[in-house]
């Protein structure tokens, strides 16, 4: 029984869609919240180990990725303004830049992870089990948290690509762009989580 046939006038409520997205973002924050909780427990327990292990990460790549994500948050926010100003071409271009930034982030992540894998450092590896307890937990958390975050980047990218298609097909326009807004909200969430992950993983002293 489809809505389109049975409902005389199509029900549309942008406020409801946005509220729904915000609530979903709460659940995502709590999902990561569980991990941040585990992180804080083990960091309290093994502060020295966590510091030593964090020196293995490249602050440069981490910093570049932070800038990349912050920049992408800006471009997607600009895309919303562009669609409101009826500038379809600019909107499409800004969404493409955002997706490109997401790709750059993932490529950096790939090299970062690949480097560790080459040295035998990955979840379940023999080397991992030889490490000191604090180091082991740090790297478990590192792979778990950045892995889950990368998964969210991918989901966010898919959302943005759908936005791109919808804008180019004309189903997102200057007076109905709540889908793009929600996509952007989700993208900001992905960015926000990274803003916490970066200092917690890379900048421990």
């Amino acid at each position, binding site marked *: *029984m*489809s*809505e389109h*046939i*049975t*409902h005389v006038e199509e*029900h549309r*409520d942008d*406020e*409801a869609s946005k*509220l*729904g997205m915000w*609530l*979903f973002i*709460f*659940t*995502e924050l*709590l*999902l*990561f*919240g*569980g*991990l941040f*909780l*585990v992180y804080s*427990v*083990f960091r309290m*327990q*093994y502060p020295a180990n966590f510091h030593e292990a964090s020196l293995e990460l490249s602050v440069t790549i981490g910093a570049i990725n932070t800038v990349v994500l912050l920049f992408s948050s800006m471009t997607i926010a600009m895309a919303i303004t562009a669609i409101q100003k009826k500038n379809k071409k600019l909107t499409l271009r800004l969404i493409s830049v955002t997706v490109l930034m997401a790709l750059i982030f993932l490529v950096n992540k790939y090299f970062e992870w690949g480097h560790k894998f080459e040295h035998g450092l990955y*979840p*379940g590896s023999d080397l*991992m*089990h030889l490490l000191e*307890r*604090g180091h*082991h*937990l740090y790297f*478990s958390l590192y*792979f*778990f948290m950045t892995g889950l975050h990368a998964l969210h980047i991918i989901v966010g990218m898919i959302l943005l690509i759908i936005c791109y298609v919808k804008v180019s097909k004309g189903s997102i326009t200057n007076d109905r762009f709540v889908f793009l807004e929600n996509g952007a909200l989700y993208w900001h969430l992905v960015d926000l989580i990274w803003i916490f992950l970066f200092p917690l993983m890379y900048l421990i002293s």
Partner: protein
Amino acid sequence: MSTEYISFLDHQGKYKGIRSWIFATDHKRIAFLYMYAIASFFLVGALLGLLMRIELISPGETIMKPQTYNGLFTVHGIIMIFMVVIPGLSAVFGNFFLPILIGAKDVAFPKLNLFSWWLFMLGSMMAIASQLLKSGPPDTGWTFYAPYSTTTGTNVIAATTAAFILGFSSILTGLNFIVTVHRMRAPGMKFFNMPLFPWAIYATAWIQLLATPVVGITLIMLIAERLFGIGFFNPDLGGDPVLFQHLFWIYSHPAVYIMILPAMGVITEIIPTFCQKKVYGYKAIALSSLAIAGVGFLVWGHHMYTSGMSEQARWFFSLLTFIVAVPSAIKVFNWISTMYKGSIDMKPPFVFALEFIFLFMIGGLTGLILGSVATDIQVHDTSFIVAHFHYIIFGGMGFAFFAAIHYWLPKMYGKMYNFKRANIAAVALFIGFNLLYFPQFIIGVQGMPRRYFDYPPRFQWAQITSTIGGFILVSALILMITNLIIGVRRGAKAPANPWNGTTLEWQIPSPPPLENFDEAPIVKENPYDYK
């Protein structure tokens, strides 16, 4: 009522036959989908429970091996908790009546609602698969405690993945309901003009939304622990099994309120209707739902008094546990006060509601024994706990579900059932229930551990009583369900307002038309206005 009224059951949409149900976005049809699925799971869970009761009728091996028994109590727990009582009232009656009670045509996101049901079915199928795959059913209990759950050879990964998917379905339902309450209320209906069932569903939805992700991530950690040995819960690798318990109960205690809050909401609808009296203390009941939801987040530690916690943490959790009992007690006092000088009509829904109050009070008061540290340590992990939570979950949520189905069935199907048989079933259920669970309190205090398939002969009198109670209970269930089915099939046509209720669902025909309200509903300032 307009002349071209067509009920949602007869309405012809885009699809025919079964597809008009499983692809329906109408909240009422989705509620039916949930109801049939949950009722089937409930019967399976109840039969597994009965098998355990038969095993316990005499000491030693009666009909099964210890490992089978471990599998059985785990399956019974997973089915009953994740597939029956957590979705139960909110997915069935929340879906059907939340939009109607607030004067809306549907929930805020009808397609998401259907998607939640599909997720629910996927998760349920996985949970069932975890029982049948070749490594054998999980034997951890429904709590999946580490470190045992990270080392046992049984299908823990399938079962936890199932629980994760079921949790996701529950999150989406909660999200949908919150937005529905915020955005879909009929014109003129403010928050404090809503009936109290929507209030309860609203508070529940917040718990579903905020607590479930925590158990979601915890179950993923457990899976990663099994696959990669990440070490979070493994002391050999520096982790901490007690951390798993904390993370698990941060969700699973609030989950108890996911189960009981909608039940309280149902009872709050039924009591004023069958007393024909304005509900006593409307605002206190509405806000106590939110208070239970809020404080309920802060009491998880009372499951872990014996797991190793500091003295301060224990008395703090104990204090908070006593505080969370206050809003529950407020509701009970308000229900009783509503009955005072009302014109009470002992129809089946009201009989079930009274039984609910009685059983819930026993469950609640024994909860205080468990909430205080000293007494809890004596009865921890004994059958006292088993009796306590069955009084809350089955005696509370289960009986509220029965009350709800007897209250709203005429509206849902447009048919009426036989009152006499329903009342007999209600009384038999009550007797069977108390025979089954009350002896467990006594032998629990005397030291009968939970989850044991064997016991010393001195506990046998209680186990036999319980098993007899179990058979009475299941027979009464069969009688009740048969009566309802006969009612739906051959019962008399139900009028639009058989109980003389005042809330919005009784203003529309039975069963409701597709979009609930053919004419705009009349919103009253107080939904329980019996003058």
